[in-house]
């Protein structure tokens, strides 16, 4: 008796489930991953709200992880067939992630290559491998000089330095040594912050050299021009004594930025991504200027980078379609405008880059104006290549190695990394 009743109940329930399945439209659920960064998380949440309102059939789950654990989570989740359909990654990680099968190319039908190249800033070519694009950014970043206006005024300095000579002069004035101890640095030297980019893509070019061949397959910086550029940077610590690497504390993320916020450093070179931290942390008036150059008419160069949204192999069928739709949305003009407002990063679409009000903006302007003369190094192994340049700089400053020798060591090691990568393809 009991079992017959049970069977009936189960039958009715099954029938209901089937009916619901037939008549209701099951929303497609996709998962988006990025690392935890308050303003970026809020911006993506806002974009998801807008996207879901316009696409009732798609649900986007947004998951974040601390920066230090982010790559580990991706490394483990994707091979297990779980984790994100769309993932946010630094553009320099692309070759490693692509080679290891963590990404799939953007489907041509939704992201035609020609359209991407016509509509996005040219530097996003760094997201292209094997003739395909593997992701798109919402925003791009460049470098600029941040300076403490209060300190400048206190020392009677009129505006930010235009040339490197002026830069050294200003920095010398603002540097304070007491009893052989650096109490305030005129410049926050951070080879492991943004300064390895500064040497690689800005100084070497300004001194007349080229860091790499056009296709980034050959290292060319071990040259007299490269040596002069590296020596110039090292001399900031060794000769001019306007700062030191690791000042004030090497154990803290963004130590030079925090030192700037604390008034221990008068000038730093940092990316547009630092704007939020400095806006929140600095208790003084500060300004942003384009990076100095060698002479008032000298060449300007800058380093640009971006985080891109990419599709993982988990996105298939309806999920792939939904993920592509979401990716289109978060890289649309609307999303970029919101991103600039909420996160402070520059839009990646050309249509938004020549707006006069943005170019003239005292904060965004210097970053925006730098985009046309920026270089996005094509890293095949960002972690290793970054380390090699940091070590080259520190060899000169801390190890007493001549700049030419430090660059020769770096060039040999980096060329081996490039050869191993391109040779293995």
């Amino acid at each position, binding site marked *: 008796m009991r079992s017959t009743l049970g069977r009936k109940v189960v039958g009715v329930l099954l029938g209901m489930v089937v009916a619901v399945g037939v008549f209701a439209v099951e929303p497609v659920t996709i998962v988006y991953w990025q690392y935890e960064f308050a303003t970026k998380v809020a911006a993506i949440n806002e974009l998801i709200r807008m996207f879901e309102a316009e696409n009732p059939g798609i649900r986007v789950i947004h998951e974040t992880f601390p920066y230090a654990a982010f790559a580990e989570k991706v490394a483990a989740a994707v091979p297990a067939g779980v984790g994100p359909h769309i993932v946010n990654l630094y553009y320099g990680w692309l070759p490693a992630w692509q080679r*290891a099968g963590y990404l799939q190319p953007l489907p041509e039908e939704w992201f035609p290559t020609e359209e991407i190249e016509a509509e996005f800033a040219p530097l996003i070519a760094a997201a292209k491998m094997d003739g395909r694009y593997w992701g798109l950014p919402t925003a791009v970043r460049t470098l600029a000089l941040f300076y403490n206006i209060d300190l400048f005024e206190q020392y009677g300095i009129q505006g930010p330095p235009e040339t490197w000579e002026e830069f050294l002069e200003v920095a010398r004035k603002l540097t304070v040594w007491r009893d052989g101890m*650096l109490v305030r640095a005129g410049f926050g030297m951070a080879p*492991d912050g943004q300064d390895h980019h500064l040497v690689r893509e800005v100084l070497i070019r300004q001194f007349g050299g080229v860091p790499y061949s056009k296709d980034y397959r050959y290292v060319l910086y071990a040259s007299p021009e490269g040596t002069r550029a590296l020596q110039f940077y090292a001399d900031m610590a060794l000769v001019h004594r306007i700062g030191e690497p690791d000042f004030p504390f*090497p154990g*803290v993320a963004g130590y030079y930025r925090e030192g700037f916020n604390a008034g*221990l450093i008068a000038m730093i070179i940092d990316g547009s991504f630092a704007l939020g931290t400095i806006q929140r942390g600095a208790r003084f008036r500060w300004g942003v200027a384009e990076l100095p150059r060698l002479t008032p008419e000298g060449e300007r160069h800058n380093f640009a980078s971006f985080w891109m949204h990419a599709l993982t192999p988990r996105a298939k069928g309806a999920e792939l379609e939904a993920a592509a739709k979401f990716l289109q949305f978060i890289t649309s003009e609307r999303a970029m405008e919101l991103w600039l407002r909420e996160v402070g990063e520059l839009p990646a679409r050309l249509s938004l880059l020549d707006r006069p009000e943005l170019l003239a903006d005292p904060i965004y302007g210097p970053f925006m104006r730098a985009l046309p003369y920026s270089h996005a190094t094509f890293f095949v192994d960002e*972690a290793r290549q970054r380390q090699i340049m940091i*070590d080259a700089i520190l060899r000169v400053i*801390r190890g007493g190695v001549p700049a030419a020798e430090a660059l020769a060591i770096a060039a040999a090691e980096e060329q081996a990394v490039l050869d191993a990568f391109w040779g293995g393809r």
Partner: protein
Amino acid sequence: MSLARRRALWAYTFILVPLAIFFFFRIVPMFQAFYLAFTRWHADPAQRAFVGFANFQRLLTDTRFLQAVRNMGFYLLIAVPGQVILGLGLALLLQAIRRGRGFFRAVYFLPYITPAVAISWAWSFMLSPHLGVINAIFRRLGLPPQPFLTSPSQALPTVATIVIWQFVGFHMVLFLVALANIPRELYEAARIDGAGSFGMFRYVTLPLINPTLVLSLVLATGSPTIGILQLFTQVLNLRFYDPGGPIGSTATVVLYMYQAGFKQFDLGYAAAVAVLLFLAIVAITFVQYRLTARRIEG
């Protein structure tokens, strides 16, 4: 079924659960790592190519890996004897006092239970060449200020010292327990036989705490929590943007493995490092065990 058998059956059932967890989350991944070490990593298991010993061959010519291995030798030489000898010394001193023993024990043990990340940050502040408290003290004492973590020659000994400071309390507690278990009559008998302090330490204390000494050495060398061969968190956090620096002078093998696996997404290569590290830990532990266990008892 008898009561005793039923009890035994229950006991086995309960043992089986943690055993299964241990087996699936420890032993199986270990063998997986062995397998991965011979493959070229790919997210799709079907595309993982078997490459034989290629990953190991690459390691042998990888200057950064070899530098990390060299560094491990220095870390072992400084930090293992440092932890064990200081731990034993502190335990002997604490055993000799009555007042405040609990307080000192707690103070020395505290760094061990403090998160390594917090310790690294705190030391990075204190060791700042220009603004840190350590150099301020040096100046007061008339000593020249030191570059510590920013110097390629001083960074490794500095990290090793921090590690010793962090773990010495753990060894001290091990030795305190061992010392408390030595029967007092033995010391009295030795004293009657005319043994001095050193004699009592050499012929009574040392042989009787030998098992603890061996344990302490083995843990300080290779254990996942405090083993020098698995040093990672401190090195990662003492120089947050340049872990293992300056110029690779503090890099460790585990840091290298982490970077290969999670920065370069080269998990086959990282697994090869893990296998070599595993073999090194087994070999060194075995040698240590044979040497120390024999010499003192013999």
